[in-house]
């Protein structure tokens, strides 16, 4: 049946809605849906040509062909809708990760300088999605840069304490605080301004104590 493959994407999207990570990008299914749309398109063209071309087609003269063309049209639109819903849902998730700054760009093992994006190790982005994440992060950075005073990607919770005690959960190298730069070594604790360390807490490098 036309649209069966597209339903797989819809089912995946529905499942993803209740997960807290992105499952693997289904590039095979996506390609399959696009293939089906192309096939429907060329079938439809063929049928129209056989009946004198799209401009002169009269559905009352050829009702069987008309029905077929209608089904092809609706199926194409349905496939498109399912495909875009799947893609959009994932881009929304990716954008949330970009805003939360928990998207991790790590250098690839080959050292060619190409960057591979993994967020938490359970989010699985397709190559096009990685590209999208990179470009969206750039877009965000440009936006942020126009509003430096307010730290656009900072905490959405209202501020409570100015300063907090934090423990370091993993080695994170050097960071800048208002007291100067500090070396973060695992299990050390320190007292810092909340707005400086809020990001690191969100990304899982630090844990707030008390």
């Amino acid at each position, binding site marked *: 049946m036309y649209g069966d493959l597209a339903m797989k994407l819809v089912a995946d999207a529905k499942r993803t809605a209740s997960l807290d990570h992105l499952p693997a990008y289904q590039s095979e299914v996506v390609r399959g849906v696009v293939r089906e749309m192309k096939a429907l*398109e060329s079938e439809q063209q063929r049928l129209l040509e056989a009946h004198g071309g799209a401009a002169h087609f009269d559905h009352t003269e050829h009702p069987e062909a008309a029905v077929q063309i209608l089904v092809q049209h609706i199926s194409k639109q349905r496939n498109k809708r399912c495909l875009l819903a799947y893609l959009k849902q994932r881009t929304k998730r990716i954008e949330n990760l970009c805003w939360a700054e928990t998207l991790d760009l790590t250098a690839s093992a080959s050292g060619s300088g190409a960057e591979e994006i993994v967020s938490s190790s359970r989010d699985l982005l397709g190559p096009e999605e990685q590209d999208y994440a990179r470009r969206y992060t750039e877009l965000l950075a440009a936006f942020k840069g126009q*509003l430096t005073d307010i730290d656009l990607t900072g905490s959405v919770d209202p*501020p409570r304490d*100015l300063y907090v005690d934090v423990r370091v959960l993993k080695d994170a190298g050097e960071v800048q605080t208002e007291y100067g730069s500090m070396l973060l070594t695992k299990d050390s604790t320190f007292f810092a301004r909340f707005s400086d360390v809020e990001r690191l807490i969100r990304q899982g490098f630090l844990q707030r104590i008390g």
Partner: protein
Amino acid sequence: MSDAGLDEILGGGPSSAEDYDLSEILQRERLAPELLPFASFAVEQTLAGLRERLEELETSGTNALASIILQTDVERTRWLVRSYMRTRISKIDRFPTHYNSLDRDDLLSPLEKQYLTRHVALLASHYDNAGMRDLPPQLRRLDDKAAAGVSMVDTPDLDRAVFCMIIAPALDLRVRVTVREDAGDGAGTRGEGVWRQRMETLHAKAGQTMLLPYASVKQYVLSGEVQLI
């Protein structure tokens, strides 16, 4: 330490008054189903006040309590502007094609317009990369309003119910109500009555709280005569 009151430390002048406006503006933006016009004056004033505060902090130095209070206020203000911007971005991203097609000067700030245009282009490019590129032009459209009966362009639901408080002394609100009326002739309805919609006028007074469709109070929300709560 001096007996400096909070007002003295914070300088209780125009910037605090604008902060208060921005707080109301933020609340209104969060509760309205559609994007409201960008409050550029309030935001500019608040940011200017913020910068003043930051400069004060650089120069003050000695009085620890005053410094703490100023810093707390700085963080509060930053959060306020941040929330406002992010609430709006979130609403813009909810209906990007729709807002992109509107041709209004007052709705989006220049920065937001730039973000929206670039974001829409980025999404289109992503869809292309994912496979849409290989399809015929008519099928590649992202603003198709007649795609087999379902419009691709979603718009905000202006009939969504919102809680309101009446601020103006008295208002006549035109509201669409749905009522059940007797079918009269009883033909084919087994005398159960039919649902009909009609416009009614509600006479509202200051202080009343109501639950109404946003569309009925929209103009009063924008004028300040009704407050969303």
